[in-house]
């Protein structure tokens, strides 16, 4: 059974600071996603990471993937209040009918304080 663990679960940080969210998974997978979710809203896709060593950056967020360590990181640079949200990593694998299923981590609730 595929397990996906995120840490920390809760993160409060000051504006302007840097921090990293970690996502570990238990078995080999096809690809890894990072999603953002604002309170009461749906999931917004941030990054998809396809191979070992993949790095993607968008604004103050950078995601990386180490498939050998089964680890992905989401690095936040110089945080701003608008980044406050819950961030989920999700690991994708083949399943029946060739459709690919997502298994989500527990999420990291990020609060950026002024």
């Amino acid at each position, binding site marked *: 059974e595929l397990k996906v663990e995120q840490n920390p679960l809760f993160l409060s940080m000051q504006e302007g600071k840097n921090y990293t969210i970690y996502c570990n998974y238990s078995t080999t997978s096809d*690809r890894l*996603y990072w*999603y953002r979710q604002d309170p*009461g*809203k*749906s*999931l*917004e*896709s941030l990054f*998809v990471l*396809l191979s070992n060593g993949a790095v993607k950056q968008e604004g103050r967020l950078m995601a990386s993937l180490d498939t050998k360590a089964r680890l992905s990181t989401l690095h936040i640079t110089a945080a701003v209040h608008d980044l406050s949200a819950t961030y*989920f990593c999700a690991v*994708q694998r083949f*399943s*029946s*009918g*060739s*459709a*690919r*299923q*997502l*298994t*989500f*981590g*527990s*999420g990291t*609730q990020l609060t950026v304080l002024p």
Partner: protein
Amino acid sequence: DAMVIQNPRYQVTQFGKPVTLSCSQTLNHNVMYWYQQKSSQAPKLLFHYYDKDFNNEADTPDNFQSRRPNTSFCFLDIRSPGLGDAAMYLCATSRDPPGSSGGAGDTQYFGPGTRLTVL
């Protein structure tokens, strides 16, 4: 714009009264998914359709059913909602053409969700 639409956005039902949630997509994707997300938890996959093929997760209660009458629409039926079924229900789609490999084309696109309250 191509998108995933869910109706209604908020649904209130009574304990034991059947309810149907709706999802439609203009992306022409092959796969449609239903997730349940309870407060402060990760989304949990209930089932998915790959074209017309229904795939149920092993731990999805029998109380939850789904229908996909055509490519664009997928419905979630809760036959006898209990208080524990109150949650946000998310519909998602992915392209997933048969035999695809590589690329980022299988990203799941989520609808805005339907928040279900059970009284």
